[in-house]
């Protein structure tokens, strides 16, 4: 579903494979690996500023559309005994929430400023739906557990419409 308005939009993004890499412990030595977003809530981005590794839970990193380099990094981590990579394609849906009311829309569910204080991404529950949020230049990006997406969009739309009226 895509909703558009001048104040706030929620747009689904196409994506391919998604991996999660789960470390055996956190914090732990693998954090020292080059290119690893070791800090809690850190996000590693590519040259186009797309998030490629999101450290959203202790030792757990989301790797959307992994490039060959990213796969190599994860494989190396697994080979070093840091943890395991799991193909979770289909578990997460990707959305961009943008526009001047983007933060206000999220504020219907959480306080985005506080949740993202000192971090680039965070695991949250939005309108009862588990998600990972991160800031983007236009607003926020959202990785949403797919079985919840229909209800999430319906509820978000109710709040978005109400913001539109005020």
């Amino acid at each position, binding site marked *: 579903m895509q909703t558009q308005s001048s104040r706030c939009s929620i747009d689904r993004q196409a994506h391919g494979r998604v991996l999660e890499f789960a470390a055996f412990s956190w914090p732990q030595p693998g954090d020292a690996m080059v290119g690893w977003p070791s800090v809690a809530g850190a996000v590693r981005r590519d040259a186009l500023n797309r998030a490629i590794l999101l450290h959203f839970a202790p030792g757990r990193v989301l790797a959307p559309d992994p490039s060959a380099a990213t796969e190599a990094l994860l494989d190396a981590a697994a080979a070093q005994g840091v943890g395991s990579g799991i193909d979770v394609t289909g578990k997460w849906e990707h959305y961009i929430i943008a526009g001047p009311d983007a933060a206000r829309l999220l504020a219907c569910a959480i306080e985005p400023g506080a949740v993202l204080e000192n971090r680039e991404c*965070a695991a949250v529950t939005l309108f009862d739906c588990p998600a990972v949020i991160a800031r983007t230049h236009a607003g926020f990006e959202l990785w949403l557990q797919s079985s919840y997406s229909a209800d999430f969009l319906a509820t978000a739309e109710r709040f978005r419409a109400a913001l539109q009226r005020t």
Partner: protein
Amino acid sequence: MRQLPCPFCGARELREFVFHKTLPAAASATADASADEFARTYLRVADPQLSVEHWQHVHGCRAWLLVRRNPSTGAVLAVQMLSGTAP
């Protein structure tokens, strides 16, 4: 204050966390493993100033936490990642 400082996520509202159980007083170190297991599972020693508990940050990073609270005031005394050794 009704927030818990999640070691991974930072301070989050209490409603994001789910309490699981209170730890009993140190289980007696008897030879009878099932007696220990019984105490661990069933018995509690009430201390109005300190409750040691397992919580999970279910609506956030899903970390399991060891939380020390004062149940008479609600004050959170300490929060750390839950960890232990194999049984």
